[in-house]
């Protein structure tokens, strides 16, 4: 019953996708578009299959940079967010810097990272951090500050220490907001990594992309973009899955929970 409903839900998106690809393929073949201008989907698939090990090895490098940067961003963002939410003094000192830092167009200063951190993974990683820390901090601060004042009064009356208030009330209240910030960061991290590779690396999907375009190997560029996009979607899915694990009680997750209960 449930499988059938799922199949029905997937039918139209799949048909739509297949139609788009077929149209693309037909037009390219009909007008005999040269492959360096626009490769047909079959060319792209062929390239992906041919160069799969190579693409995978380059993806791994991008994933590494994005993943490490993301972890650093989340750790930094949570710590800074907690400090800002916990102290008005820290808020006043730190927040202006954050806003200015975020306002700087990061793509433009990417070459500076090359100068500061050298060629390779380290540069990429810090670039990912620069790209992703802001949503994490902002959402952490908002979340921590939006705890129910009466719940805070209640635990204070129970004699909670500052750390207990943070741990028992503020952090759980902020979790939904923090998850939203991390999901934003998750979508930004691979983009940051690829831009970092454009500028400061001789490996990774970003570097591959630049080189493929330089060599007018457009099929390879499309293959890289395809692999990259699939990775982005999978990463988003993973983030949603983690969110559901962490927030089973949250209103945003309840409906799915009840549906699952009803069907199993």
């Amino acid at each position, binding site marked *: 019953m449930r499988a059938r409903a799922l199949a029905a839900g997937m039918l139209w998106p799949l048909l739509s996708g297949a139609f788009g690809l077929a149209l693309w393929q037909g037009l390219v073949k009909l007008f005999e578009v040269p492959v360096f201008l626009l490769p047909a989907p079959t060319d792209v698939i062929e390239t992906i299959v041919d160069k799969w090990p190579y693409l995978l090895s380059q993806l791994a490098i991008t994933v590494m940079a994005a993943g490490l940067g993301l972890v650093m961003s989340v750790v930094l963002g949570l710590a800074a967010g907690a400090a800002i939410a916990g102290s008005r003094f820290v808020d006043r000192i730190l927040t202006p810097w954050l806003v200015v830092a975020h306002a700087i167009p990061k793509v433009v200063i990417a070459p500076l990272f090359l100068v500061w951190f050298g060629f390779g993974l380290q540069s990429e990683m810090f670039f990912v951090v620069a790209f992703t820390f802001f949503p994490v901090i902002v959402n952490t601060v908002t979340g921590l500050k939006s705890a129910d004042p*009466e719940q805070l009064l*209640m635990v204070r*009356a129970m*004699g909670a220490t500052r750390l207990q*208030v943070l741990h*028992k009330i503020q952090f759980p209240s902020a979790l939904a907001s923090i998850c939203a910030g991390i999901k934003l960061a998750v979508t930004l991290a691979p983009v940051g990594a690829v831009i970092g590779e454009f500028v400061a690396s001789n490996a990774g999907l970003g570097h591959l992309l630049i080189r493929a375009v330089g060599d007018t190997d457009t099929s390879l560029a499309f293959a890289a973009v395809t692999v990259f996009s699939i990775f982005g979607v999978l990463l988003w899915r993973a983030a949603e899955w983690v969110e559901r694990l962490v927030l089973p009680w*949250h209103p945003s997750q*309840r409906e799915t929970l009840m549906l699952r209960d009803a069907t199993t």
Partner: protein
Amino acid sequence: MLFACSRHDNDFIRGSEGFRLMAAAGESIVLDGVEKTYGGANGVRAIAPLSAELRAGEAVSIVGPSGCGKSTLLRLIAGLDAPSRGTIRIGTTPVSGPVPDIGIVFQRDLLLEWRSVLGNVLLPAEIKRLAGLETRASELLQELDVAGFAKSYPWQLSGGMRQRVAIARALLTRPALLFLDEPFSALDALTRDQMNVLLQRLQTTQHVTTLLITHSISEAIFCADRVLVMSGRPGALLDDIRVPFERPRRLAVRETPEFTAIGRRIREHFEKAGVLVG
């Protein structure tokens, strides 16, 4: 302000632990000339000098109009705020900082949505670092007729059930005083009657000194051994009425002439003060 707990407060918790465990039968609460003014000498006077004594195990209601200083009184008794004048004692211990030995039930149940019912009831034990209260938590849920929901989450419960859980949470550490701040005013009338019966049953089994703040005259009488009538701001004591009915009480007691006579006496205070115009 949220983080105002100092190291001193922690010492306070540790020091009062033994006392808390002995205080199963409740403690007497003494308000001695308590006065509260906000904002300096010419500020708003929330409570006029107020003296009252709650004997150990006694159930007392405070009934008064909005703005009679009841929230202020809660903050004072809970030690979250200091009186401008006068002293408050729970048992022999003067209230001098946060964490006097009281359990509070608010108008909103304030259950933590991310914790199970049992997890919510055990919250005070975690915060006060008291171990071995799991059995008591289960017993309290049993007594409040929500034992079947120990593993449920708050959003799966009705309003009345949620408030029962909140009461269990307040009673967990056997506080010297159970402070109820308009606990049933968000519930429908039938549920509210049911909770009134439940509360006065609890007072018999838990022997806890109870202070109930309410706007409902009939609730104030039904749930208490004594009703304190408060005036509007600044809050002052207008009357102190003994409620003679035996326990356990049934809802039918509300229709007796004695009950209506007490109700009339309270109503007349409010009419005289201009709070009620009948």
